[in-house]
């Protein structure tokens, strides 16, 4: 009886200290892509959220006399087909894409993790059904779901976020379920079960903390993907409505002037690319470190 009681406790402490050690290793030896990616992300976020103070001109101010001007001292990135300052529009135009993508990622992450963890804990039929649904939904293009729902309910924040979340939760669920299965057989989980802990306690105290880091890495990678998807929807005119600036919309509006003013198309695309690249690098850095920590821990 005594040994039974002490063994789980010892392993509980092991888990705690190793998690601390992991966290320390994580901070101390960050991968370079993580550093560069975070710097880039901070830059992009600062640009997007301080845009109203940073923008040199009113992003909506028309000036039909100076249309499609090349870059100059007054207009660093030139002007668009209505004579509006491209730099100002670029700065302000990120709010929609970044906000929608971020909210979508957070909701998908919470939903997917919960479904995955519960399926992984419950096992049996529930697990089987949940995972088969994930298998089937994971290849359904989210753009198609979004276009269908926006076509019916019209473009709005809610429709966009809802339609992107509808299939967006699947990768998190798959990963969370796999991680849960891995942790399920650990001694401290068995100990908690033997001690008669509540299901929710086991899930929130033991399982979820174990899934956070891999899922964080994946969510940064998915964030980049969402930025591109939302930009694409807005390119199709299914996001922000015209007078307001938006990166995807700016790309679409630049299309007819491709030859006359290539910068008009290159600039907003480059910003989407940099934003997506920053989070992809962060996610990649986290993945590398997680794998590194795992190899070291074995």
């Amino acid at each position, binding site marked *: 009886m005594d040994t039974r009681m002490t063994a789980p406790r010892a392993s509980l402490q092991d888990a705690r200290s190793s998690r601390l050690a992991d966290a320390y290793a994580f901070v101390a030896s960050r991968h370079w*892509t993580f550093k560069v990616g975070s710097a880039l992300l901070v830059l992009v976020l600062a640009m997007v959220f301080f845009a109203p103070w940073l923008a040199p001109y009113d992003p909506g101010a028309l000036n039909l006399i100076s249309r499609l001007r090349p870059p100059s001292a007054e207009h660093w990135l030139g002007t668009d087909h209505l004579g509006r300052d491209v730099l100002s529009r670029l700065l302000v135009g990120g709010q929609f894409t970044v906000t929608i993508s971020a909210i979508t990622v957070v909701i998908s992450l919470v939903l997917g993790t919960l479904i995955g963890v519960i399926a992984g804990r419950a096992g049996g039929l529930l697990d*089987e*059904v949940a995972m*088969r*649904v994930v*298998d*089937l*939904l*994971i*290849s*359904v*293009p989210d*753009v*198609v*779901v979004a*276009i*269908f*729902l*926006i*076509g*019916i*309910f019209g473009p709005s924040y809610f429709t966009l976020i809802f339609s992107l979340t509808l299939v967006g939760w699947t990768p998190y669920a798959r990963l969370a379920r796999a991680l849960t299965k*891995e942790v399920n057989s650990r001694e401290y989980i068995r100990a908690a079960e033997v001690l008669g802990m509540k299901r929710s306690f086991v899930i929130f105290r033991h399982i979820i903390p174990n899934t956070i880091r891999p899922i964080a890495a994946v969510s940064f*990678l998915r964030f*980049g*993907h969402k930025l*591109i998807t939302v*930009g*694409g929807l807005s*390119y*199709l005119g*299914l996001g922000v409505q015209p007078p307001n600036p938006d990166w*995807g919309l700016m*790309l679409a509006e*630049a*299309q007819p002037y*491709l*030859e006359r003013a*290539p910068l008009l*198309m*290159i600039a907003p*695309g*480059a910003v*989407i*690319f940099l934003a*997506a*690249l920053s989070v*992809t*690098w962060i996610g*990649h850095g986290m993945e590398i470190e997680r794998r590194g920590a795992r190899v070291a821990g074995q």
Partner: protein
Amino acid sequence: MWKVATQRVTILVVMLFIVSVVAFCLPLMSGGDPARTILLSRVSDLNLAPEAVEALRRELGLDRPLAAQYLAWLGSALQGDLGYSFATRQPVAAEIARALGVSITLALSALGVALLVALPLGTAAAMRPGGKVDGFTTLLIQTLVATPEYWFAPVSILVFAIWLGILPSAGWQNWQSVILPAMALMLRPMAYFTQVTRAAMRDVLEAPYITAARARGLSMNQAVVHHGVRNGSLPVVTFFALWFAGLLGGSVVIEVIFAIPGMGRLLYEAVVNRDVPMLQGGFVAIVGLSIVINTIADVLYVVINPAMRGSHGH
């Protein structure tokens, strides 16, 4: 084996049913009277006679309860009849078949080239982890994943169609018009294929049968070619199916940019034209096909290689 197959098929059928209900009912509940929309598209007179609207509604069966309408639609859909487009007045099923042919060609060209690049690149990266090729490959993957295809496409139009004038900038006439859109579509799958190939080859290279082959006196390259490539490409095949399913409708932005009459553009135009039958049919076709392809790939994977279930069960 049979248990797995029946289970997958059951869930497939249930999912298809849900998708078809959603696809049929949502466009009808979106407010706006389809009968009015049709009449408005036929005659440009805004003052429609109420009797005419009523007559058309009865003719289309729109006055019946939604469930009855759904069952009638499902019945004819199962026989390959999805009704007539409001916009073009052509049978929806025929339009979808045509668009599907285009999208399949586009998806297969993009994924085929992506695979041709990714397999050798991923293998080369896996041979020396942490080496120069591996580092370059990783950077390339990150860059490709972050590149918006609707940014790459206009740039490629600018370079190859406008400045160099060697490829068409839009349309779907001959094999040349496939090149630019396929290039734009292949970026992300190429990145993921390379990543999967690299991971699969790492697993393979550490497998005992490679050591055994080396012990029998084969060189590393021989061992990889004879034993590694076949095993390493299995996960890639699953990935290929996933991407193929995803690209059938997911290439919508590229199809719109290049004016390609594929599935994505069909759905997009159905939205723009408020073309209810086309929206219903197009959505069912895209989502249904991606689900079906996925199930087939899943079952095939198990059939081809039952051993994988054991070795990959972690």
